[in-house]
């Protein structure tokens, strides 16, 4: 599905990586690893189409993503480093809005179920400003429960700030997505056991 050729990334004058090739098929998992500042987030942002590569091409089903734009965005779920959670809105409203931005309408019942699954059922109506860091992260990740029809998930440090139960939930969501034939790219510093048909990792050196 996703094919990356000869990718290079520069931040300022520093070349973070170059000559990166990989291909990700159905049910494929890509783990991006490396020390802080090695370009993990930059790589994810390039693949998500948020920034442009210094060199190389990224193709989605054979077409360059720069030309696909919204057609690519409709198939992509990106949970970035920032949670994109509005402090004034409740967890439920935040979830509804982020799904709308992804072009999906959601029913109140489906959202309640998603928040229940991620462990926020009792905080669903509370403005997000009263939530802890880990709970805000869970609000951002609640989308994963309603994201079966996004073929590609890109998750930047999804496990950061999560407790063990939430972590297990997110891992099981990723597992289920891979089993469905979806593809996942994620960065993490934690050791997690994810079952995938094809799994490989890229280790970036600082």
């Amino acid at each position, binding site marked *: 599905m996703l094919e990356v050729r000869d990718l290079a990334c520069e931040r300022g004058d520093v070349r973070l990586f170059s000559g990166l090739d990989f291909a990700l098929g159905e049910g494929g998992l890509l783990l991006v690893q490396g020390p802080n500042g090695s370009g993990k987030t930059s790589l994810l942002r390039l693949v*998500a189409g*948020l*920034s442009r590569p210094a060199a190389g091409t990224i193709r989605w089903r054979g077409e360059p993503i720069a030309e696909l734009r919204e057609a690519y965005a409709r198939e992509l779920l990106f949970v970035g480093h920032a949670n*994109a959670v509005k402090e004034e809105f409740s967890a439920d409203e935040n979830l509804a809005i982020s799904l709308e*931005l992804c*072009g999906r309408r959601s029913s109140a019942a489906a959202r309640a179920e998603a928040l229940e699954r991620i462990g926020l059922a009792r905080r669903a109506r509370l403005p997000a400003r009263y939530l802890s860091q880990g709970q805000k992260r869970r609000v951002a990740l609640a989308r994963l429960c309603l994201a079966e029809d996004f073929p590609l998930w890109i998750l930047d440090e999804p496990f950061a700030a999560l407790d063990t139960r939430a972590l297990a939930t997110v891992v099981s969501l990723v597992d289920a997505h891979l089993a469905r034939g979806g593809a996942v790219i994620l960065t993490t510093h934690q050791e997690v056991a994810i079952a995938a048909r094809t799994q490989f990792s890229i280790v970036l050196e600082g």
Partner: protein
Amino acid sequence: MLGGLQSIVARDLRLSMRRRGDVLNHLVFFVIVVTLFPLGVGAEPNLLRSMAPGIVWVAALLAAMLSLQRMFASDYADGSLEQMLISAHPLGVIVVGKFIAHWLLSGLPVTLLAPVVGVQFDLSQQALVVLTVSLLVGTPVLSLIGGVGAALTLGVRGGGVLLALLVLPLFIPVLIFGAGGVSEAQAGMSAAPHLSLLGAFLAMSCVVAPWATSAALRVAYD
């Protein structure tokens, strides 16, 4: 596409209902600035009448400046803007939604308040009508051009001052034709030429601003 537009406008309006202070601040600012002039200059009806169009329009510009900075800032800070850039809706549609919401919360209230504060300057009924119409046509231009500036100064240190330096010169034509129309009406002449030119500015910025803002937002994240 319309669904995307609608959901962005609804989201921004709902968000500002939760932060009512932000919306009220610049309206109170507008009323206070306009009110300070009659108090400072003194109750000389002829002087006040001739100064009124300029004062109301400059106050409207400054009030718009206050609210512009917030157009994208909080979405940029918490990562929502990132999600908008890779949204299923075209970025241009989202930007237009943000413009509409911004105008509904800043330009429209100022326009509705203008005839009320204009009474302090002993403006004729005719002049008050032209003042309101000129603001109705002119304030969307402020949101549009200001939005480009707000997007260009995202994430820049001291962005507020830079935004003012960038955008205020571009507001000059709007100020001249907006205030000029009211002065013409006071002199008993037709304000139509000035209002038409304002309309032309509005049409032009409707075409250019969404495109330029989208490009600036992409650069801010690159």
